[in-house]
């Protein structure tokens, strides 16, 4: 697995888990600070990864071919 994608997967999972925690602990300022820090780190890694590989269809594409459709897709073993 691509190392940037691997790290981004980890960070995005941390964000999912913390988001869920904050849903029922919305006043936990320490957790909010951690959540904001993770989102900033994840956003930087996402930009780095998306220079070559689209993660969402809304990523700006190369002009000669729409990147979004590139294989492999995420459920395929080669992607992971």
């Amino acid at each position: 697995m691509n190392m940037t994608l691997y790290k981004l997967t980890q960070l995005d999972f941390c964000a999912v888990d913390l988001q869920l925690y904050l849903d029922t602990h919305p006043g936990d300022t320490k957790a909010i600070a951690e959540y904001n820090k993770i989102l900033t780190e994840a956003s930087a890694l996402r930009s780095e990864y998306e220079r070559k590989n689209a993660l969402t269809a809304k990523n700006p594409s190369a002009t000669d071919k729409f990147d979004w459709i590139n294989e492999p897709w995420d459920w395929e073993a080669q992607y992971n």
Partner: protein
Amino acid sequence: MWIYDKKLEFPVKIKKKDPKLAKLIITQYGGPDGELGASLRYLSQRFATVTPQAKAVLTDIGTEELAHLEMIGAIVQQLTSDLSIEEIKANGFDAFYVEHGLGVFPQSAAGAAFTANAFQSKGDPVTDLYEDMAAEQKARSTYEYLLDMIDDPDVAAPIKFLREREIVHFQRFGEALEYVRQHLSANHYF
């Protein structure tokens, strides 16, 4: 609305085909305690819930369950990719094959097609959250029974991850239930 992110919540990379195992794991795709039912349960129930915390929890867990549905689909697909007719016959995958080929179909391990009859959206925030906590426990039990059947660490890793998420979700639903209780008692419903 939702936006598709082209990556799994937890990586699935399986090297060894195992159609027998795929037939069991598919129950978490479309079976009674599977991820599809879980997602539809929470995303439907949220329309009738109260308190910002319960609305957030049902929305976010309902969304995460779709990422889990996708992981289960990936596991089933990778366990059955490029099976030969001989492998299909030898591993008892023939009944599934004649109905679905090597497609991924939402069904239980026993072959029953997905049904919404396995869950409720009762319009009562307390009733619904109790069902949700039970649902997370039922899914956890299913993942533990599946782990009894799994030897391949490539398959066990994502299944263990999914089992752990059931425990976290159970905890969050319990906390949401407390907010709902406080809200309703403040309004003298009880």
